[in-house]
């Protein structure tokens, strides 16, 4: 599904290499986790995959279902099925959450040559999916992320994910700033979207999120590279021994 080959990326304006040859394949229906210390390049990877400005790809390829996505605009990647749950969801004053969702859903449908969703169908779907994330109608009316608590923002990301039905989901430190209850709620939201051939790339510092979202594969990233890959037990190893031991082991 998502295939990253020897991806090398510089920060634009600076001749500084942040990703130094990342190789990673996420198969359809699988959940991959990337763990790593601060500054290892995890968030950069999520931004480069989704097409954020400010990064220069100097080498390597990224394909989503065999389509080269590095050549695509961010919105084209989105319509091709790539979704990024932001670490820091952005506030858009004056734009109702519902309006935002509907505009996004219809933009993607239009880009794929599908018909716009009818107002009633849309409303029905939103209400249904919002309910399971404990998002009330008040929150759907409020401007996008404005005045939302940390937990509300993250739940809102998952609601967007549920509505857009992407093929490949990237979660960038979705657990940061969440208490245990909020994390469970978010994890349940994610778990309900698992399967159906959907791939996940879960980026996190800590193992605790992976107690709730059970990964199939765990990667350790350090200094712009994937340095170790293993099963769920690798996350536990990090939890117990910290990164330094693993890093010294692979060094």
């Amino acid at each position, binding site marked *: 599904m998502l295939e990253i080959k020897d991806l090398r990326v510089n920060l*634009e304006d600076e001749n500084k290499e942040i990703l130094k040859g990342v190789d990673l394949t996420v198969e359809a229906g699988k959940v991959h986790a990337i763990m790593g210390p601060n500054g290892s390049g995890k968030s950069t990877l999520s931004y480069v995959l*989704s*097409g*954020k*400005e*400010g990064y220069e790809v100097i080498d390597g390829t990224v394909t989503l279902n065999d389509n080269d996505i590095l*050549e*695509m*605009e*961010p*919105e084209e*990647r*989105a*319509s091709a099925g790539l*979704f*990024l749950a*932001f670490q820091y*969801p*952005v*506030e*858009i*004053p*004056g*734009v109702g959450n519902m*309006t*935002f969702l509907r*505009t*996004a*859903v219809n*933009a*993607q449908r239009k*880009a794929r040559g599908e018909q716009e969703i009818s107002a009633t169908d849309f409303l029905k779907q939103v209400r249904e999916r919002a309910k399971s994330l404990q998002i009330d109608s008040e929150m759907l009316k409020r*401007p996008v992320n404005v005045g939302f608590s940390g937990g509300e923002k993250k739940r809102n990301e998952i609601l*967007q994910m549920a509505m*857009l039905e992407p093929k490949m989901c990237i979660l960038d430190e979705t657990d940061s700033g969440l208490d245990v209850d909020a994390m469970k709620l978010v994890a349940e939201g994610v778990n309900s979207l698992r399967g159906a051939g959907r791939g996940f790339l879960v980026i996190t510092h800590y193992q605790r999120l992976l107690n709730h979202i059970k990964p199939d594969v765990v990667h350790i990233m350090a200094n712009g590279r994937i340095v170790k890959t293993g099963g769920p037990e690798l996350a536990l190893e990090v939890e117990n021994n910290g990164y330094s031991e693993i890093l010294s082991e692979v060094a």
Partner: protein
Amino acid sequence: MASFESVEVKEGVDQETVDAVRDVGAAYKYGWETDIEMEYAPKGLNTDIVKLISGKNEEPEWMTEWRIKAFNRWGKIEEPKWSMVNYPEIDFQDQYYYARPKSMAEKPKSLDEVDPKLLETYDKLGIPLKEQMLLAGVEAAGNDTEQGERKVAVDAVFDSVSVGTTFQKELKNAGVIFCSISEAIKEHPDLVKKYLGSVVPITDNYYATLNSAVFSDGSFVYIPPGVRCPMELSTYFRINAENTGQFERTLIIADTGSYVSYLEGCTAPKRDTAQLHAAVVEIVVEEDAEVKYSTVQNWFPGDEDGNGGIYNFVTKRADCRGDRSKVMWTQVETGSAVTWKYPSCILRGNESQGEFYSIAITNNHQQADTGTKMVHLGKNSKSRIVSKGISAGFAQNTYRGLVSMHPKAKNSRNYTQCDSLLIGDKCGAHTVPYIEVKNNSSRVEHEATTSKVDDDQLFYCRQRGMDEEEAVALVVNGFCKDVLQALPMEFAMEAQQLVAISLEGSVG
């Protein structure tokens, strides 16, 4: 702005964006022209032309004299230069001051007699000149009396003349007078004599004085005491003829305890020469009366290089004469090459209220210097100003506003919120507030912000699937929300779309 500039750097992908920028001139939907036989007064301006216009409208002598007085004054004063707009000098002798379709020489007695070409024009503009119900979202289907049903009476002004006014009979039954000003001068001379020039005197300013001399038509509204106007009233202005100025005059009188909501829309064909528009709107609000005046101004803004477009010099003022009288101006200014416009409120009555909600969008080479004046004369009077200025391309957008608390305006209050949004790094936003407080019990608050469309917001929208223009339109509509909400329903939708269209090509 980094995200916009770097788009150009990328290869291959942005041909569409380039095309979008190139086509921006084509984004103006109303740029076509009606091919119709016209009758012009000779070019230029002199006493004879003023008399000719007065004669064409079959005006009584007092009106002709009023015009000539204005014309004589105009010859002695100079164009104001204090606004933050630049345009080549206007040759006032190289303009037509009167143009009417030949078919209108004989004033049609009813809408059925109006030249089909004119009716077609308004149909194409989406302005119903048939007396039909406007059903929100639903085609008029039989006896549907759902709540979406709204009636809007229209006065359609084409170049120098009013083409027709709908729903006159129904309005008459309610005691409301809604007709063209030329008709009012003949049919209701006492009202016109009493109120015309009483809010904007002929000596007011250069363009108002010019308008007083040469105005050819416009709308007249009188709402009698205690009457709530049974439908929205609207005037739709269309400039069609080339090298012709449009000078319309609108006079609205809301008598004691009455209410009216009035909408105004404007468009013009695309041309590479600039055209002049100098209108005057006077509103009289008596005790306990309320007037809402909404404008969607979409005159041709000129092409992407700044050629052509309308020079829009407009004087709009409401006089809240009575106690507890209230006026609300809402404007969405997206068109015109140059806009010079300050809809104002004279808050004379005690506890009178003035509100001004404005969205001014300038793109490419457009320039807008717009704002309001809130002149507090009465005790406990209140005013509120919410201004949203958006600049893109090479445009310059200035908010200029006066809040004045006179000595007698005890315990009065004003709140001003003035926000500017910049798209790209070649445009400008300016805020010029004038605040005068001459008593010690009034309160004036002024808040101003300037921001850029945030890269992170755009990326967030694009990651969810919206293209760059859609993302900008969404963010800008959010920015304007306070003002859009103040618009009547049928304008709000149009205005939202207009925001998107006006900004096409502003990114990429």
